[in-house]
């Protein structure tokens, strides 16, 4: 019995400690960020390419099909009320406010987050980070900050591209295949989508971008430097990012409503 309590106490203590060091890690990245952007923009651009431009294919394909399925479902269910014309509204609001940021963040965790954490974890396992420290190069500044910034910068763009391909997919499905009137599709959308809705989506995409890249970098940096440890860190990146993104999504929506 006493052993159980001690375990719970130790685990809770460990959790708080990890959480605290996570915050400090975030502050460290933020503190080094402006200098990296100004002094070594090349490194940041390289990471924008790695996390953003290389994720384009998956983002666009998924966006197209998510929009398409929204168009299909929206059409099929709105047709029961003879309200097929509102399908544009339904698709646009769903994509801009919710699905765009959330699904992009989940895909980002799967495509770019895992790449980041396994790369950093492997650098640690093969003592590259220690070697940098030996040469008086700060690995946090040289390796982690550009990767973190690359993710933060690419995320809002990825979300916008996802949303637009989604709208395109919905347009293809509902207007071209199911013959919803093209004028009604766009006009109904424009009547009900407000600039506030887009602001909500953009705020979400910025927050998710920070969270997803921060978690990926953090997990990689704190990976146990073995083959197994790197694998576990990669898994944890996806799991924790998915959980935090969905919880944060609920909280942001509750606040913005």
């Amino acid at each position, binding site marked *: 019995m006493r052993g159980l309590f001690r375990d719970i106490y130790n685990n809770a203590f460990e959790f708080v400690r990890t959480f605290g060091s996570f915050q400090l890690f975030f502050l460290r990245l933020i503190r080094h960020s402006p200098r990296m952007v100004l002094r070594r923009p090349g490194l940041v651009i390289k990471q924008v390419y790695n996390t953003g431009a290389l994720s384009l294919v998956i983002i666009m394909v998924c966006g197209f099909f998510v929009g398409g399925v929204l168009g299909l479902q929206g059409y099929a269910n709105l047709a029961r009320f003879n309200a097929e014309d509102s399908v544009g509204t339904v698709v646009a609001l769903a994509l801009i406010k919710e699905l765009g940021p959330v699904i992009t963040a989940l895909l980002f965790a799967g495509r770019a987050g895992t790449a980041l954490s396994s790369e950093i974890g492997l650098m640690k396992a093969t003592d590259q980070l220690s070697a940098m420290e030996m040469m008086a190069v700060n690995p946090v500044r040289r390796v982690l900050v550009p990767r973190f910034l690359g993710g933060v910068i690419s995320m809002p763009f990825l979300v916008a591209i996802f949303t637009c391909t989604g709208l395109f997919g919905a347009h293809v499905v509902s207007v071209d295949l199911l013959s919803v009137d093209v004028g009604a599709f766009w006009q109904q959308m*424009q009547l009900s989508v407000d*600039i506030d809705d887009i602001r909500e989506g953009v705020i979400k995409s910025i927050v998710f971008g920070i969270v997803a890249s921060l978690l990926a970098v953090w997990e990689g940096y704190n990976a146990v430097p073995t083959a197994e440890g790197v694998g576990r860190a990669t898994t944890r990146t996806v799991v924790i990012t998915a959980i935090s993104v969905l919880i944060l999504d609920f909280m942001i929506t509750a606040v913005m409503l």
Partner: protein
Amino acid sequence: MQQTRSVEIGTGLFVLLGMSALFFMTTQTTGGEKFSASETFEVEASFENVGSLKPRAPVSMSGVTIGRVTGVSFDPVTLEAKVRLIIDSQYDQIPDDSDASILTAGLLGSQYIGLQAGGSETYLEQGSEIYFTQSAIVLENLIGKFLVNSGSGGDE
């Protein structure tokens, strides 16, 4: 060097694509009845009941949006709702005895203010008030009236 170049080109294309997507979202999916004019004048109108009229609702004349509602408040002295609206300055020849009514766009659409031109020789200007107003139609009142009418009709 070749590799850096392709990275730079890829990143540039990616960011351009992202920006144009953002631009497309903000301009093409929103809007509709957006009203923007650099010079406007403000007028007031009192309504018995404004229904669910909200700030930023359009003000239209003959179906064309010429302004928007900037504020809806309750006047404790006259016990009526006071609506402030701004109208584009280029429409400076609206007769001041024009009639303002609160209408609904479509069956379930949002409410807006429709102006019906009067015949006066003086025009609306900054600070003037629209005297002839017609309240929003509240569905419950309408049903109530209908029920009363059909009830009395049945007695005869």
